[in-house]
């Protein structure tokens, strides 16, 4: 018995089975999406290098999740909607307008890091101007908070929507349960996005849950639960857009589960050979790679050509390199400033 809607699943093909025009997307949109994904990927790779060179203490990756992240963010309205992303969501942040420079300030632990002034590790996002709420390390604490943010929008009669994400590991915590239940009762305009990559660090799905889909929990709260192929950006965009519209119409929250995969270790502190095979990873590095899938769609549908895509690559790399050079030279925070902002200053 299927109790969740399934979109794009079981059709894991190169490209997508959907047509972007039916989703209201222009070719220009597709290229922008492509650019965001490539930007996230290359920034990620360069960040890994920087960490390996000993220039950063910590690095955590979005690699493999780009379709999910960019697809979700593209369906939101930057500047108006609110975001409570989890630590992998580089693709979300870049899509809504956070710059590589800003993200690199966090990687290099620099004073002007807009998220935390280098108080927190990289990937603990936050961006006041873009309504990205400050995040922390304990997983899933952001879930009930997102419900509260959305409650406030609804309370004031505004039609902004709140995005909140977490891994499938995070769905095991009480915060998930309590946050979704509250949102369903009060029909808060919030979209819960579970990026299910099959592992909570090393713990595989069968030790995390006895069900196939996290989305199957939605029915127990009274909201739609949708499973989507998280490698296919068009499928992701489709379900996210529907959920956002539903929320804006005042019909309440949705739980979206994107089946995805992280193709690198959990973080710079992890060695994933301890718990998964190289063969398994390889699939997601090749045919199931989300960037490859969009590329295949773009080329297959003659929306663009290899050359143009390579141009995007070059341009993105140049942007990143410039940002790295810049960010690395920025100042460290001042030691004594660590005493500030325990409380508001007068």
């Amino acid at each position: 018995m299927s109790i969740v809607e399934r979109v794009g699943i079981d059709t894991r093909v190169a490209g997508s089975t959907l047509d972007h025009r039916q989703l209201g997307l222009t070719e220009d949109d597709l290229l922008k999406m492509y650019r965001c994904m490539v930007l996230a990927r290359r920034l990620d790779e360069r960040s890994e290098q920087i960490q390996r060179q000993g220039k950063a203490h910590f690095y955590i990756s979005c690699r493999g999740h780009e379709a999910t992240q960019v697809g979700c963010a593209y369906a939101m309205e930057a500047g108006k909607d609110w975001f409570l992303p989890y630590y992998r969501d580089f693709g979300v942040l870049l899509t809504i307008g956070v710059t590589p420079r800003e993200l690199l300030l966090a990687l290099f632990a620099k004073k002007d890091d807009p998220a935390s002034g280098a108080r927190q590790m990289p990937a603990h996002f936050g961006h006041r101007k873009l309504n990205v709420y400050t995040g922390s390390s304990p997983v899933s604490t952001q879930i009930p908070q997102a419900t509260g943010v959305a409650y406030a929008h609804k309370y004031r009669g505004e039609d902004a929507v709140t995005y909140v994400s977490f891994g499938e590991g995070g769905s095991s915590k009480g915060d998930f349960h309590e946050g979704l239940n509250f949102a369903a009762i009060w029909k808060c305009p919030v979209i819960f996005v579970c990026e299910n990559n099959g592992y909570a660090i090393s713990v595989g799905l069968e030790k995390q849950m006895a069900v196939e889909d996290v989305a199957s929990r939605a029915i127990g709260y009274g909201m739609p639960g949708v499973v989507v192929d998280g490698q296919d950006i068009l499928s992701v965009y489709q379900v996210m857009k529907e959920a956002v519209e539903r929320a804006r119409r005042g019909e309440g929250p949705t739980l979206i589960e994107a089946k995805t995969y992280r193709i690198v270790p959990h973080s710079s502190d992890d060695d994933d050979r301890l718990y998964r095979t190289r063969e398994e990873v390889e699939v997601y590095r090749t045919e199931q790679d989300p960037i490859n899938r969009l590329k295949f769609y773009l080329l297959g549908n003659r929306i663009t050509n290899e050359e143009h895509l390579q141009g995007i690559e070059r341009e993105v790399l140049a942007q990143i390199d410039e940002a790295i050079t810049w960010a690395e030279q920025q100042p460290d925070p001042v030691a004594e400033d660590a005493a500030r902002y325990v409380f508001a200053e007068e």
Partner: protein
Amino acid sequence: MAVKTVLESVHDTLWKAMEEDNRVVIMGEDVGAKGGVFRVTAGYLEQFVENRVIDTPLAELAIIGVGIGMAANGMLPVCEIQFADFIHPAFDQIVSEAARIRYRSNNAWGCPMVIRAPYGGGIHGALYHSQSVEAFFAHVPGLKVVIPSTPYDTAGLLYSAIHDPDPVMFFEHKRTYRLIKGEVPDNLYKIPIGKADRKREGRDLTIFTYGLMLHYAIEAAERVAKDGISVEIIDPRTLVPLDIDMILESVKKTSKLLIIHEDNEFCGFGAEVAAIVADKGFAWLDAPIKRLCGPNVPAMPYNHVQQEWFLPGVEDIEAAIRELAEF
């Protein structure tokens, strides 16, 4: 000025603060139709719309977590935890989240919320409806911790708490709710968070205490006064920030310090007061710093005999005063 109980003082202050400012909402278990298990919010649901008097599911983590999100997005939530004993499921949201929203975002975000909870014993609440929890939260930088003990302080501090830009833990001793009465101005007013109050002037000995014990201490001080022992009583009113100056000033004068609280002694709040004075007030001390606190057992038992065994009473305080005064 009307004479009110502590309970009425909370009721009226919250009510007026909600009337005054739409951003203020209350949320918690049974705050709606029932008006709260102590009837603090009696009549609210009729007066305000349902989405300002939020009956939540039985889920403390969500009460705080959702409140944090509201606070991030322009509201001023006043979250009620039905009994302080039940605050622990929300410990992570309070300690890891609310307390450090500002710090971790380098001042980009704030968390203006109030977390109210009735605490304390003496009402046959047994192990789980009697506890004091202030020591946990006082240890957490980023939280303000307020414990008013009179109707007047309650109103002024609650109003300050609601408009404080940072999260405030607001603990009300449930035994004082109906027991303690006092004059309260009709209008809303603020008492600054971080200022202690000298509840009694004296020369021979300083008592630091708050909550129900404050009232017991006053009674004990009156008793010993007849024998010429002059006790000064400092009510901190807010444990964080703590008004260290007033404590030191008093110890400088009396040279003796007795710390009293209902919470168990070991690592209780009194330890911090003792530590501060043993450092900064060392030179003035004429006697060991004494603590009279709840015993180090998990909480007070239900049976009245054992409940009494747990709670420091007026006689115990009197005895402690006499002993220290004679030192």
